[in-house]
């Protein structure tokens, strides 16, 4: 494996956040961790701080304290994120940000606030009614509130030009990510899903400019690859938008006979379907983009267009043969969406397979067998 992907895998599995600590040492700036799935990183960047996308602790941390705080039936990422805090792994973060994705994450925000009073811990309410003309104004007010709080924390005062520049930087990063995803969908035999996943997710822990350079380098390296396609079905992987599966799960899906042609792993890094406008009030542009240019997601509600329709379109656009629903245990948004997705996929005649995972999944044989059987049933149907 190329050094770049080894580096990326090291970065995404590092629960000591070395890249974040190095950045702080280098710049003297502050770091803001945000819980999945999406946060307006541009505002944090424009305040001179490092936005860091948190993703739990994977299989790198034994839970000693957080089980007692969150009890049974709560997803793993909520517990491992609290455990990171309780074991001092989040010391590098001056602020933690949560959004309205689900009840467990929302409550985690206030458990963190109680347990870590020295940090700025806040909750952004991302609207569930984008059809209301009032939603954009409200969301822009949320963003202005965040900006003011970051300034109080020692960030740069609000500067419209700085936010516009940040939007440009993130637009560039997201456009490159989108184009790599398109490239992968065209030539999945040349780009492993696990490579693209590690490459994209590494951006959660790096300054956006540095990550953009990595994406450019990766794009050039991919272009030079050559290999023969093998017999595999083309699948869309859907459902792991928040808690992340072990990277081996992604590898096994491929090894078991699937080309992953699209997915929603770490979807926050490619949240927008097109560039955010850099004209006018940037806070309003960010708000309007969230309402009108976001990808569909199980944690974003927009009743102008059903999410199940979004999934079917994704399958058709990517010329996928099937969908693998990869759902984190106890993830209620994914459980609920599975019901409507399943109905729609069956109506459209699209085969699907449900797989449940946990961050700490460590035996993969059953998973491999399930996916192999599923792939074979389609290949040799």
């Amino acid at each position: 494996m190329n050094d770049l992907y080894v580096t990326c895998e090291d970065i995404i599995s590092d629960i000591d956040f070395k890249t974040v600590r190095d950045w702080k040492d280098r710049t003297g700036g502050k770091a803001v961790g945000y819980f999945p799935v999406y946060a307006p990183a541009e505002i944090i960047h424009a305040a001179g701080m490092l936005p860091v996308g948190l993703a739990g602790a994977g299989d790198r941390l034994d839970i000693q304290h957080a089980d007692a705080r969150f009890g049974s039936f709560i997803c793993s990422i909520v517990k491992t994120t609290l455990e990171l805090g309780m074991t001092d792994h989040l010391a590098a973060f001056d602020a933690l940000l949560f959004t309205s994705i689900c009840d467990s994450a929302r409550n985690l925000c206030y458990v963190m606030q109680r347990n870590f009073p020295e940090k700025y811990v806040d909750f952004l309410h991302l609207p569930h009614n984008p059809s209301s003309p009032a939603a954009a104004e409200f969301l822009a007010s949320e963003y202005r509130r965040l900006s003011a709080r970051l300034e109080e924390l020692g960030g740069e005062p609000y500067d419209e030009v700085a936010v516009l520049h940040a939007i440009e930087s993130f637009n560039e990063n997201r456009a490159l990510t989108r184009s790599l995803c398109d490239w992968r969908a065209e030539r999945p035999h040349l780009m492993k899903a696990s490579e693209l996943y590690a490459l994209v997710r590494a951006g959660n822990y790096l300054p956006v400019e540095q990550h953009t350079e990595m994406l450019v380098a990766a794009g050039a390296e991919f272009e030079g690859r050559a290999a023969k396609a093998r017999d595999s079905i083309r699948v869309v992987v859907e459902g792991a938008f928040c808690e992340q599966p072990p990277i081996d799960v992604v590898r096994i899906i491929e090894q078991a006979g699937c080309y992953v042609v699209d997915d929603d792993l770490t979807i926050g890094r490619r949240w927008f379907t097109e560039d955010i406008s850099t004209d006018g009030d940037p806070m309003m542009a960010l708000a309007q983009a969230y309402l009108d240019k976001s990808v569909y997601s199980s944690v974003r509600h927009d009743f102008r267009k059903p999410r199940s329709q979004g999934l079917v379109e994704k399958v058709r656009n990517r010329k996928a043969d099937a969908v693998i629903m990869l759902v984190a245990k106890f993830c209620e948004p994914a459980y609920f969406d599975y019901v409507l997705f399943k109905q729609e996929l069956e109506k459209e005649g699209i085969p699907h397979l449900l797989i449940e995972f946990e961050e700490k999944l460590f035996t993969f044989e059953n998973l491999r067998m399930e996916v192999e059987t599923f792939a074979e049933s389609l290949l040799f149907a």
Partner: protein
Amino acid sequence: MVDWYQKLAESAETGTPPAASMMVSGACVELTQAFDVLPLYPEVNALQLAIRRQSLEPILAAEEFGYASDNCAYVKADIGAYFKGITPTGSPLPKPALVLCNFVGCNTYVKWFEHVSVIMEAPLYVLDVPFLRAGEPSADAIAYVVRQLKELVVKLEEITGKQLDMDKLREAVWCSSQVEEYWSKIKHLARRSPSPFDAYFDAITLMGPLYVHRATREGVAFFKQALEELELKAELDREAGVRERFRLVFEGPPPYPHFRAFRDMFAKWNACAVASTYSTVGGLWEFGARHDPDNPFESIALHMIEHNVTNRNMQQRNEQIKRYVEEWDADGVIIHFVKSCRLFSAGQGDMREYFSRTLGVPTLYVESDLADPRYFSTAQLQTRVDAYFEALEMHKSARTSAHVG
């Protein structure tokens, strides 16, 4: 409640009056009342099925349809009952003319109402209510909700063919303010010792009328009478020398399929709930908030954002319970974790930590479910409850000795 189910049955049969599905917590029932639209509460149906021990069959039907065993059992009971044609009273329920998702804190509701809308092919409107972060909502949050309420008025005008009658809206808001006043006084009766009623198990029986009839004259008369009867009971209890052994605060919804068994575990120890967070799901009024007929839209918005437990954050819920412990003079806190409801349950272990370790309040944490009968272990729960009371008794006598000493 029988009257309400009767009206729903009439609506199902004749289409009049139209019904709107709503979430109990933070319901803008004053607005639907102003249009004579019947409130239809899926969670009331789900809990009615559960308390009547009818929830398992629809839950299993919903799981067969694709819902996970770890999805909210209220949702599964409601949707499964629709598939199976089961209703709590046996009489029909109407197809909602509007699925009004007054999203208040509970993310599950957004999904639930979306599913109801898809499955029943009924129109959906999501009234998005910003979560309460600071002590008071921001002007932006209030303006956002008021603007959506006015968008909702247009929807209700379309459904009913009527224009909004502001006098009728003010009347409904006034009725709510009166009911809130009586309900608040009832809650404050529990500050007396002995408390004339159980503010968890008894309060639950008053919560149905609170949601269904709050914005009506019938509701006002009902709660006035309830207050008078409980005041009389308080007096009679005092004269008869009734004693309660333990005063408790309850957090979390009850296990409806095993409601009686759960209640008996506490009754056995002559323990009385003097306050509960669950009874503030419909509205948190015992600290002074009221609807205001002079500002109907703003006060409905404030009710939705600020004055119900589900839209308040966990630190605020901790503070609410702390006030109950102090001002209602409670001996301990019971936290009932229900697997269905992550809104209540996620992080309740940290709440236990706060009350038991930080504040030194004896706290019991038990787990079961609010609608799924399969998650209730009588013997295990009884053992934990008994052990808690034994420790609480020692704690109380140690405290009394220290106080006397």
